[in-house]
């Protein structure tokens, strides 16, 4: 079984991102970039399926300019077998990402596609679901457990009320939640080996996809700041403030 994993290059999760003063965009100058944490979990899951003898090959795909090859190499160092970069200029919207991934899927015919449930930059949480629609595959979103049984995937999903388990016909799309697994660290020998693994570059035109724009960002700004609060000395004082000043408890 071939597994396709999508990875996105995003700002490292430790970086506190700020809007530029002129409000045109976020300030990404000299900011550390990394693989999106949810995508890292997706790679780990695919590699574990390979180690368990369920998957035969893991292909990592990223969409973006040449710099995203860094994140493909990270995926290869974590255990993916080969990489594909779909070359685009700048950011591409989720719907277009889904179309490009569908193009890759048409060529690669994977039985399982694993993506992160959202990227920590745009926080959209859409690409996997859109990919499901475009390919006609079922979707197991926000997955905390994935089990392959014959021609089906049993996926436990983290939903608002608790956990829901669904059975999906393969091929299927899975999007990862935080507790699906804990990704490993790439070892130095594996990082070196990853440099020699194959990495193909495709263009949207080769995949028959037109890169379109549906949503334009007009402005970015910092959120409303909370006013500084006060420190209280005791529980007694806290309860008094909540009752008589904030009036939020009776």
């Amino acid at each position, binding site marked *: 079984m071939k597994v396709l994993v999508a990875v996105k290059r995003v700002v490292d999760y430790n970086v506190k991102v700020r809007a530029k003063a002129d409000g045109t965009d976020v300030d990404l100058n000299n900011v550390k970039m990394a693989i999106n944490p949810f995508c890292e979990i997706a790679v780990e899951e695919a590699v574990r399926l390979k180690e368990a003898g369920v998957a035969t090959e893991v292909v990592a795909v990223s969409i973006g300019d040449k710099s995203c090859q860094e994140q493909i190499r990270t995926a290869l160092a974590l255990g993916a077998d080969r990489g594909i970069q779909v070359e685009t200029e700048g950011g591409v919207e989720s719907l277009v990402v889904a179309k490009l991934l569908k193009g890759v899927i048409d060529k690669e015919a994977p039985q399982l596609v694993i993506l992160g449930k959202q990227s920590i930059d745009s926080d959209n949480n859409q690409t996997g679901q859109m990919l499901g629609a475009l390919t006609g595959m079922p979707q197991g979103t926000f997955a905390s457990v994935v089990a392959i049984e014959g021609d089906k995937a049993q996926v436990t999903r983290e939903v608002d009320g608790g956990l829901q388990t669904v059975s999906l016909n393969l091929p299927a799309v899975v999007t990862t939640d935080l507790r699906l697994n804990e990704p490993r660290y790439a070892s130095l020998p594996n990082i070196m080996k990853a440099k020699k693994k194959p990495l193909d570059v495709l263009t949207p035109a080769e995949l028959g996809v037109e890169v379109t724009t549906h949503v334009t960002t007009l402005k970015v700004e910092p*959120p409303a700041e909370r006013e500084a609060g006060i420190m209280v000395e005791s529980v007694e004082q806290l309860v008094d*403030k909540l009752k008589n000043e904030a009036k*939020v408890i009776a």
Partner: protein
Amino acid sequence: MSTLVLAEHDNESLKPATLNTVAAATALGGDIHILVAGENCASVGEEAAKVAGVSKVLVADNAVYANQLAENLSLLVAEVGPAYDNLLAAATTTGKNVMPRAAALLDVAQISDIIAVESADTFKRPIYAGNVIATVQSSDPKKVITVRATAFDAVAAEGGSASVEAIDVVHDAGISAFVSEEMAVSDRPELTAAEIVISGGRGMQNGENFALLESVADKLGAAVGASRAAVDAGFVPNDMQVGQTGKIVAPSLYIAVGISGAIQHLAGMKDSKVIVAINKDEDAPIFQVADYGLVADLFTAVPELDAAL
């Protein structure tokens, strides 16, 4: 202008997030319809018909919609959708699961998690875990939108008198099946709808210690939440997680106990009206957003708080 709101429900009753979503639809203006898709969900349809500002309720009652499977529901939304300018759902795990799939079937983008309607095509939404607010404009002929419930004041659940129409549109994609669910059972209010929330973090040390918070919660009529650290550590289940990737809450009072205040947690609660932080580390970032901070050992302070209430 016309808007279709996908009802959030459990086949028995309408979930409050639907009322916040209708509020966002009201901000867009025009006719508002609600789509109730489920099985044996007539009572939800009746409830939806009473929601203020709604003119029509469509009820698709069929076993294929019983568990809100995205594969089936998105086909329904995509079939009913072309008659509307806007398709809205709450940004709950159901809305987030179904709407992007429906958007792709309609070949339009989705605007996720809006917090304000600026005009018919322009919206505000948080990005980068809420560190930045983006104003975005859609050029699609049809807008598919998920709504952050806490950002819109709920419309009245009563007072409307919409017509109810059964629709016989059955889509069974036949590619997925519901197997089982483990839902949290609690007498306390739902986290996203509670007036008061008390949450614990890594500082709670284990799951048993959450009983300290539960006791306070029961006195205040509060819901109990948790930080990602507490959920990842296995103290409590995932449905209690408050944060960027968990639940977004905005109660009147949020009490953070033993929570350091990571960006991703703050993203889920910083719109609360009053924030209280109890932490023994005086440098914890949570104090920067707290209205009232108390530097104390939670194992002393929480029982004291319990006794004082």
